[in-house]
């Protein structure tokens, strides 16, 4: 009972012997015994708020697909390394499952040019997808996550503090709450200096309950800041369902209360995300003030690291480390995996005639090679020099060692 538009790539993959990449997923989808593609199509229609993506040139659309794949394979490769290589020290809050949000949102931004002209992105503890989508160098990011001296941030920050202002990726932040208020501050500065940049904050459903949520939205509205809050509602903050901390079904309702235009989109469909983001970015750039996008999405791994996952397989199942108040049911994960952002993007592009299945496979193969090379490069990088820990406290000089007495 697969509708036409999804059939093509599935068929193509099955016909192509090199197409092993998504087999794990297909097997799971098969087992689950239901296809949610109809739901998908319905949702897409309902939230098809603009035609922006449909008007884009092919290369731009293909780039979004490539971004999704780069994120996906970065996450999978890193998860596999965590699981299989005892010497590997990196860790991550994996973004797999949410790729379409970062890819669609960042595709609507200005990512190249001098720092005073590009759009700025603030991210969270789950930053690798946003970093890749914004254009951070993959090799350097891999090195940073592995605490290497030549990493993106010299090994000082690692996964939770990735930052690359050169591409407008202000960066990750390990705390839940302050991110959006800091981001409104950037938007405030931008407005004050008369620039047409916009500032985007990506945050989870967990950010809703923080006191900072109110501060960020209220000030963004009062000062009409060029600020876009992309709320990735993946249903859980750590191990609690968002209904534990939020009285709204759609968190976007909370933003609307401030008079901020808000959209709820299918976060698994990169083009829906792009459309909503394009609308918000255009408005903000023109001085029309803030926007809010709630993307309904899901993470395939657990909150942190790869417990419950198996090497070579996507997703983490059955991991319940503690008797927790609220923990995601495995069935929920399986049903979300049936609406995979990679599959939806691929199917849509084939449907639109932008790609054919073979080209899609070729792109994926390129991406896998690129990712593998990034990890390999990172692993060859030097470790940090201990004494350098005393640098970068202030712009100049070093602070004094105090651990020796």
């Amino acid at each position: 009972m697969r509708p036409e538009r999804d059939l093509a790539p599935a068929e193509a993959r099955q016909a192509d012997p090199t197409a092993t990449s998504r087999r794990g997923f297909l097997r799971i989808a098969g087992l689950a015994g239901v296809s949610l593609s109809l739901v998908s199509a319905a949702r897409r229609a309902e939230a098809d708020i603009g035609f922006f993506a449909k008007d884009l040139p092919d290369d731009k659309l293909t780039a979004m697909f490539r971004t999704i794949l780069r994120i996906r394979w970065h996450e999978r490769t890193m998860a596999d390394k965590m699981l299989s290589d005892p010497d590997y020290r990196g860790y991550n809050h994996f973004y797999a499952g949410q790729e379409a949000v970062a890819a669609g949102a960042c595709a609507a931004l200005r990512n190249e040019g001098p720092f005073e002209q590009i759009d700025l992105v603030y991210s969270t503890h789950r930053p690798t997808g946003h970093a890749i989508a914004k254009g951070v160098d993959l090799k350097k990011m891999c090195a940073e996550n592995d605490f290497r001296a030549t990493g993106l941030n010299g090994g000082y920050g690692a996964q939770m503090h990735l930052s690359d202002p050169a591409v407008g990726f202000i960066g990750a932040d390990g705390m839940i709450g302050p991110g959006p208020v800091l981001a409104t501050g950037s938007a405030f500065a931008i407005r004050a200096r008369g620039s047409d940049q916009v500032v985007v904050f990506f945050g989870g459903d967990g950010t809703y309950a923080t006191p900072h949520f109110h501060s960020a939205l209220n000030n963004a509205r009062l000062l009409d800041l060029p600020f876009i809050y992309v709320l990735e509602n993946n249903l859980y903050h750590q191990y609690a369902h968002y209904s534990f901390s939020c009285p709204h079904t759609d968190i976007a309702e909370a933003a609307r209360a401030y008079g901020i235009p808000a959209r709820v989109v299918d976060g698994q469909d990169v083009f829906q995300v792009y459309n909503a983001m394009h609308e918000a970015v255009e408005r903000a750039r023109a001085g029309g003030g803030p926007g809010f996008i709630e993307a309904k999405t899901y993470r395939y791994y657990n909150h942190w690291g790869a417990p419950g996952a198996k090497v070579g397989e996507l997703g983490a199942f059955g991991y319940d480390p503690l008797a927790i108040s609220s923990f995601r049911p495995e069935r929920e994960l399986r049903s979300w995996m049936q609406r995979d952002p990679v599959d939806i993007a691929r199917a849509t592009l084939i449907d639109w005639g932008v790609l054919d299945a073979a080209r899609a496979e070729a792109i994926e193969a390129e991406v896998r090679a690129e990712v593998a090379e990034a990890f390999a490069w990172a692993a060859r990088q030097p470790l940090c020099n201990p004494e350098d820990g005393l640098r970068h406290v202030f712009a100049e000089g070093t602070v004094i060692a105090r651990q020796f007495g």
Partner: protein
Amino acid sequence: MTEKSWMYAVLEAVQAEMRADPAMTWIFELTPPVASNPGMPVINLETEFGRRRVVNTGIDEMWMAAAVTGAGLAGSRAATYIPYQGAGMPFQIIQNHAGKLRHMTGGKASIPVVYVIELTGQTPGFAGQHSDYELDTAYAHIAGVRTVVPSTPYDAKGLMHAALRSPDPVVYLYPAGLRMLTEEVPDEPYEVPLDKAAVRTAGGDITIVSSGPGMPVVMEAAARLQAEGVGVEAIDLRALKEMDTETFVNSVAKTRRLLTVDMSYYTLCPGAEVIARTAENVEGARYKRIAFPDAPPPASPEMFLWMRPNADHVVAAAKRLIG
């Protein structure tokens, strides 16, 4: 008496107090109040006391701290467990409200609550915002609040009982790196006083003062020094406020040498207070501090482990101070 983990010992105290007082509440965020220990029943406060008394909230540590403060003002004992990532969020509420209300109301307000505030800093690779041993100073400087920091499972349980029974607000710093420590801990409730230091080893050559996460390092160093014949008086502050001045001043009056060890940033670390109090009271002693440098803890294990005080540093500094 059973060998128990720190975590289990602490929850045992909370469970006992909640059983004794049906009004007492516990607010948590992401660390469920659950612990198990070989041979002991699993403790799960949420299932035992229900979700009216044991609440899993959103990510809002300011509210958590304010909520227990308000519970106290309404006449109920309450405690909250703030994870280390949110350890700085409740600062203003504790400094300006919990710490001042009894005094400002001329004794009418009572806030019998406990703020369990996790601190970390022993995990190379986490770093930055996820290492925050530095917050001990911020909380210890506050008036009107008792601030304690245990370093052993036994003390962790006894201080928890004392904190929960205290009519004063207590900041109970919880060094997350120590929660897997185990030792023999009595099953029944007992109190460790909220204002007494513990002399962990006796000796006449040097006084070494530390607290919480610094103590394992100090104990290792003390053992090595004692083995070499150096008499070490290792003192565990336990209470950062009110500090048990007498214990360390008397010790330094004897040893004439004081070394302090802190995982907190150097400037204004608890050791600075220990040295200052001693220097005001003892003449002619020699002093040295070991602390984390005044730099955020970097992620790279190479940098981080080099910067973090360890037993080698303590042994070497002690010898220099004596020699």
